[in-house]
């Protein structure tokens, strides 16, 4: 690809803010992800506060932080309201999925690592790359603004199922029947039209109001807009990654010499580019239903809320679920395949041994991605779709567990007979493998259609998603940050602090999420504000409390990571080009690499994992065969 159109940046603004340099853009994604990670974590703690101490969560909180008393609406007494609670878990999941894990894996690591690891000077389309970051800002705006609108931020779950999310109340029609008792808690009732002639903006907002839930009005509209923009960003990233990987590889970097991180990003980008349009269409349809009164998700006979009828429809609420999961099942792999690649690279560098089964690892990624397109229905076994479809979706779902198992076996075989250096990075990578086993196994329970009848929408699902997303993807991200931090910032993070953080996070995350399996086996439904009103769930309340305590500690422990990260950017010990003595191309550049990355175009002679080579000077061949770090070790970049 032509790189001349992309000169070295001149001033501060073009260098660090509106930069086309993939490294700066990657770091921008990293930092915005970090901020949303904090927000998402706090929202989760709100959820756990309520579940640990239903009806007295705020009392507990006020004991510790009396100064908060003023900011809590008096009408709640000492309680988090049920509507507020639905907002907490909805926005927690939305933030973590669409604003943390996806931007971190694809945006931050994808951007930073792809050109460096394939020996390119930059992305194929630097301007598009820059745009992919800045398109996120409208998404940030709508997401954050939605917390402050009438009715609050979205509250129909990250899955946003119609008609809870989509039903509208046409404000032009007077609304005699809204059940006063049921709706008293929702502050979004349109102001009575007689009291004052509302302005245009008021009238528009009133049109958005939902008879189903207070937060499904303006909050839901903003949620949809936020997701449309963040999807646009991912789409721009994906086409760029695909083009870059196909066209910008250094001489000798055949596809089968690419590090698994790049394979993970490549497969993910393809998944994204094929699946995202479907989600975007679904979001736009729901947006139109919410705003201009289309009826894509409104059934022919309409709906009745109390005595109040919507107009007639002609659509199908189930359509949303098909479109949504057609994207969001591949999306769960979008959130793990890059991490799988990164973990493989980290693992190999610290095992000092070639990756076991490079080709099976690549093919299993491709297999997961391919099968990932035909399993979406496993989220809908109980949805009311024709149950005979469940049979096919179950068969496809169990098949997808096979390549996942193959990956686990190959990682284990990589570790077997190696010589592992235990560092913060390698420990997090090892934890990924151990925890992904648990997450994969719980997936099999849900893949079994009859068992899923019972555990669907219980805490078993919540346990599953956190084993694959927190204990796997997040641990992969921790590993990746520790591993590539020296390349990004020219310094290393403190390894002892990293290990303390790993130790505590590993313990507490298991303490938080493993008991959720038990809750699920007991039948505890997810998204419940107060399970204690049920007799059959009283017995698990101690577990709920234990989970909440672990979760709060888990949140606190992340401060160690944050402090280590921020401190090391400025004060960490300087690292050379290749502090881990790894083989892939990024380690041949200075830390951090300059504009254009490589001093001379690298020529690739070897695969990425030539470790334990007895004939080589240092027991390894770097991909260019140079082992340049040996020559330059000690000389600072």
């Amino acid at each position: 690809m032509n790189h001349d159109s992309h000169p070295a940046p001149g001033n501060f603004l073009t260098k660090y803010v509106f930069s086309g340099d993939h490294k700066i853009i990657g770091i921008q994604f990293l930092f915005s992800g970090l901020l949303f990670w904090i927000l998402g974590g706090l929202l989760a703690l709100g959820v756990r506060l309520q579940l640990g101490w239903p009806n007295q969560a705020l009392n507990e909180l006020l004991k510790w932080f009396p100064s908060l008393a003023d900011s809590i609406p008096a009408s709640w007494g000492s309680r988090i309201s049920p509507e507020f609670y639905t907002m907490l878990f909805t926005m927690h999941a939305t933030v973590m999925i669409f604003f943390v894990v996806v931007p971190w894996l694809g945006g931050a690591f994808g951007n930073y690592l792809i050109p460096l690891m394939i020996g390119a000077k930059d992305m194929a389309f630097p301007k598009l790359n820059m745009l992919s970051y800045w398109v996120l800002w409208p998404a940030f705006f709508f997401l954050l603004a939605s917390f402050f609108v009438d009715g609050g931020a979205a509250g129909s779950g990250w899955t946003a199922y119609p008609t809870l999310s989509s039903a509208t109340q046409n404000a032009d029609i007077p609304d005699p029947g809204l059940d006063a008792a049921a709706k008293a808690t929702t502050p979004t009732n349109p102001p009575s039209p007689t009291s004052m002639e509302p302005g245009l903006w008021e009238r528009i907002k009133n049109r958005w109001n939902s008879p189903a839930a207070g937060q499904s009005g303006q909050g839901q509209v903003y949620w949809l807009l936020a997701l449309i923009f963040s999807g646009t960003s991912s789409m721009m990233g994906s086409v760029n990654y695909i083009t870059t990987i196909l066209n910008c590889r250094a001489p000798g970097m055949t596809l089968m010499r690419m590090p698994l991180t790049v394979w993970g990003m490549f497969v993910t980008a393809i998944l994204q580019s094929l699946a995202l349009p479907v989600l975007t269409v679904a979001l736009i349809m729901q947006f139109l239903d919410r705003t201009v009164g289309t009826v894509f998700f409104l059934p022919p006979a309409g709906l009745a809320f109390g005595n109040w009828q919507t107009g007639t429809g002609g659509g199908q609420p189930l359509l949303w679920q098909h479109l949504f999961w057609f994207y969001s099942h591949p999306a769960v792999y979008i959130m793990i395949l890059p991490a799988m690649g990164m973990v493989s690279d980290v693992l190999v560098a610290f095992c000092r041994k070639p990756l076991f089964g490079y080709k099976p690892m690549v093919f299993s990624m491709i297999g997961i991605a391919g099968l990932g397109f035909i399993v979406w229905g496993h989220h809908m076994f109980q949805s009311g779709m024709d149950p005979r479809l469940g049979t096919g979706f179950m068969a496809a779902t169990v098949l997808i567990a096979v390549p996942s198992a193959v990956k686990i076996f190959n990682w284990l075989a990589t570790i077997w007979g190696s010589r592992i250096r235990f560092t913060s990075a390698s420990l997090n990578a090892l934890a990924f493998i151990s925890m992904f086993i648990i997450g994969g196994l719980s997936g099999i329970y849900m893949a079994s259609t009859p068992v899923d009848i019972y555990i669907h929408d219980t805490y078993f699902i919540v346990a599953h998603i956190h084993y694959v997303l927190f204990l796997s993807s997040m641990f992969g991200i921790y590993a990746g940050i520790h591993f590539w931090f020296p390349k990004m910032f020219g310094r290393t993070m403190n390894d002892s602090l990293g290990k303390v953080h790993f130790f505590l996070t590993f313990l507490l995350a298991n303490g938080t999420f493993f008991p959720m399996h038990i809750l699920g086996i007991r039948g505890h439904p997810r998204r419940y504000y107060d399970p204690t009103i049920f007799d059959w769930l009283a017995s698990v309340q101690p577990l709920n409390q234990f989970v909440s305590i672990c979760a709060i500690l888990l949140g606190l422990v992340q401060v160690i990571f944050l402090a280590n990260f921020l401190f090391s950017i400025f004060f960490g010990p300087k690292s050379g080009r290749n502090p881990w003595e790894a083989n892939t191309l990024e380690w041949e550049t200075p830390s951090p690499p300059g504009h254009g990355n490589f001093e001379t175009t690298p020529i690739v002679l070897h695969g990425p994992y030539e470790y334990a080579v007895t004939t080589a000077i240092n027991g390894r061949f770097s991909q260019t065969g140079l082992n340049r770090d040996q020559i330059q070790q000690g000389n600072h970049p």
Partner: protein
Amino acid sequence: MHRFWSLLFAAVNMACLALLVVAYAYPGLGWWLPDSASTQANEIDSLFYLITGLCAFFFVATQGILIYSLWRFPSTAPGSPSPIHGHPGLEIGWTIAPLVGLLVITAASLPVWKEARYQGFPPPALEGTNPLPPEADQVILVTARQWDWHLKYATESLPAEGIRQWASVGNPSDLIIANELHVWKGAKVSLLLRTTDVIHSFFVPALRLKQDTLPGKTIPMRFEATVSNVRFDPAEGRVVPNETKASWEIACAELCGGNHFRMRGKLFVHPDRKSYDAWLDHSRRQTRSRSLTAMLPNASSSNQKEGALQ
């Protein structure tokens, strides 16, 4: 120090396993599957244990290898790492082994699914007259709305081809009750699930039954209870717990708004048809004496949480 990490991985994994074992071994804790009171529940539980057995094997094997490797192969261990790049035989082996396990699970699951969900049901695509399998002893229409369940019991026997008609219009003698599901042990119960507003999900843990209600659709479902927990006491004019003292609840499993968690109902399994009929007769006479309009679905307050009998 290097052994420490191996021990940590061992400790965490063993603690996880131990929690499962404790929860299973001490039913008194109430940390395991709740009572199982239907044919379907027993089958689902057996599948659950089958999967647990296979998963336990896989879990112990893989985590064991991992923990042993961490113990045996730290960088401080003598010798050097082996330069092996792969092994086709192993790859084939560990592709086939999980595949076999998974096919066993699939083969065991699909008949249960078929029986629970579509065997004998008329194809849903045919919007014919009767959406239900023919053998029903009891037909109950469940209408969900924010935030309770309305259950309509037919008191006259229904012609099979009239069931759709009955679901939408009904007979004057029908009994409509909020949040109480009454059946008798051994009855082949057919449910028709509907919603007036948003998606809900009818979840009866003791029956291992869960089905979303979809706006615009009527979804058929069936079950057969195998254990009874109450009987109708004509003297007291209400249902009383029997010796099992079991209280079985109904919950909503699909987010349906702020009070989603409050859609609590109860399941009453009578010992036989006689007790059920006595209850039905009694309740119908009681409710008829109240205003009939008060029982129309739209009129009762959504705060009403318990049915006529509590």
